[in-house]
């Protein structure tokens, strides 16, 4: 049997997606030789793998992910970080840097309430995620603004081969950092650009399950700039 859906079709939990020689990927599961959706999302076939791209749901930590967090408590023994996930994360002196090269004396303690951008270096079912900030571009975030979107929709803010984020950087601000956990930090040169960026991020979030998004976002930025800034047409296109 061919698959039971068209690519990008919206499916819900328990829906039969495919039968026969298929594998189940993210958002789907197999019973016998049948693949079913486990979540509400967009069904996709890639090779023999049937998956469902989620539209809503928690951020599930993954080693290697860059996340934006908030310091919940801090002591010389370590820090607890809220990463907008079902598990909170930790930074220990021994793991503050990935290799442990610099050791304990280099451990920088952040204050409670400070925001950081960090990388997940370890996580499994039995242990909470552990973070490091010892890499280029990681560490404390200062100033700017943070907004939260559905973590499942972060891939659309990045876009195909980074096309969306490239667009946002070129048109609005290059000071933007995206956490895979749904938190986006940015700083803009003025309030009008800030308003446009927020409106655009909300649009991407809301329309994450639609096609042609990058082009529509491009149009929206152009329109908003003309409205708000009186920018001459074609300046950045």
């Amino acid at each position, binding site marked *: 049997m061919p698959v039971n859906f068209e690519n990008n079709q919206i499916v819900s939990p328990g829906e*039969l997606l495919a039968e026969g020689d298929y594998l189940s990927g993210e958002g789907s599961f197999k019973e016998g030789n049948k693949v079913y959706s486990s979540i509400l999302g967009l069904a996709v076939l890639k090779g023999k793998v049937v998956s469902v791209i989620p539209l809503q749901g928690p951020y599930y930590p993954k080693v290697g992910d860059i996340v934006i967090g908030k310091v919940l408590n801090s002591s010389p023994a370590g820090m607890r970080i809220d990463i907008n996930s079902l598990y909170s994360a930790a930074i220990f002196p021994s793991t503050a840097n990935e290799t442990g090269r610099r050791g304990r004396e280099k451990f920088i303690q952040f204050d409670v309430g400070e925001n950081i951008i960090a990388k997940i270096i370890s996580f499994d079912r039995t242990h909470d995620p552990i973070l490091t900030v010892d890499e280029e571009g990681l560490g404390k975030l200062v100033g700017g603004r943070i907004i939260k979107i559905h973590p499942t929709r972060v891939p659309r803010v990045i876009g195909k081969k980074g*096309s969306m984020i490239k667009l946002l950087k070129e048109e609005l601000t290059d000071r933007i950092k995206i956490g895979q956990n749904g938190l986006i930090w940015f700083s803009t040169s003025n309030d009008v650009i800030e308003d446009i960026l927020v409106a655009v991020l909300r649009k991407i979030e809301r329309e994450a399950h639609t096609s042609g998004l990058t082009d529509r976002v491009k149009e929206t930025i152009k329109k908003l700039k003309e409205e708000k800034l009186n920018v001459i047409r074609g300046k950045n296109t």
Partner: protein
Amino acid sequence: MLFEEKIPEKLIGSDGLRLDGRKLDELRPIKFEVGVLSQADGSAYVEHGKNKIIAAVYGPRELHPKHLALQDRALLRCLYRMATFSVSERKSPAPSRREAELSMIITQALQPAIFLEYYPRTSIDVYIEIIEADGGTRCASINAASLALADAGIPLRDLVAACAVGKADGQIILDLNDLEDKYGEADMPMAMLYRRGDVTLLQMDGQFTIEEFNKALELGKTGISKIYQLQRDALRNKYLSIRDEVADESEVKVEITKEVEENE
């Protein structure tokens, strides 16, 4: 209750119809709406006949106090509550034994559907509030809670759909309303993971012969199949409406999935 309710002499008329005009195997009008609350991770509103119910889901989230945490799976906790004004006689705001029992059986009705093992050491909290009750609140609550779980993005083996069957004036009837529940001869709420054919809730009070029970079980399954389909439509509609809206805005066709895959 200011005025005593009149006890109906018959629940099924000579025309074979029930007091609210329904056929024996007919469901009440049902309306599902998904994503109705701003703070909850998932939510749903259900109108089932005159029942008005809201269900909300928080989680999976860190569980406090920690000693309740399960090392191999998430802890599911459902809380069923009725507003004081949801029933004829004002309900005391204090939790009742009935609410405690229903909270437990609703938890048990939903639990088999959820991949709890994906999220060890966390909790999934389901809060159900009955705004107005008109018979069959536990089933309508399960229908709402199941939608709220799906809306929260929690992985499920299947949607859980529920409906009551019963007996009135000697006839097997589907989806009892308040009067049929009170004055009928039997009431049997049931819930299923319909696709799998798993029954996750079954209660009964009243009297059935074994033949009647079998007939009721079959009728209940038919009702559940219809509700199950309505649930799917409600979930899809939440996102389809936005898609339709932007389809008007732009004709450009780009593969969403490629974008998502390539930056993973």
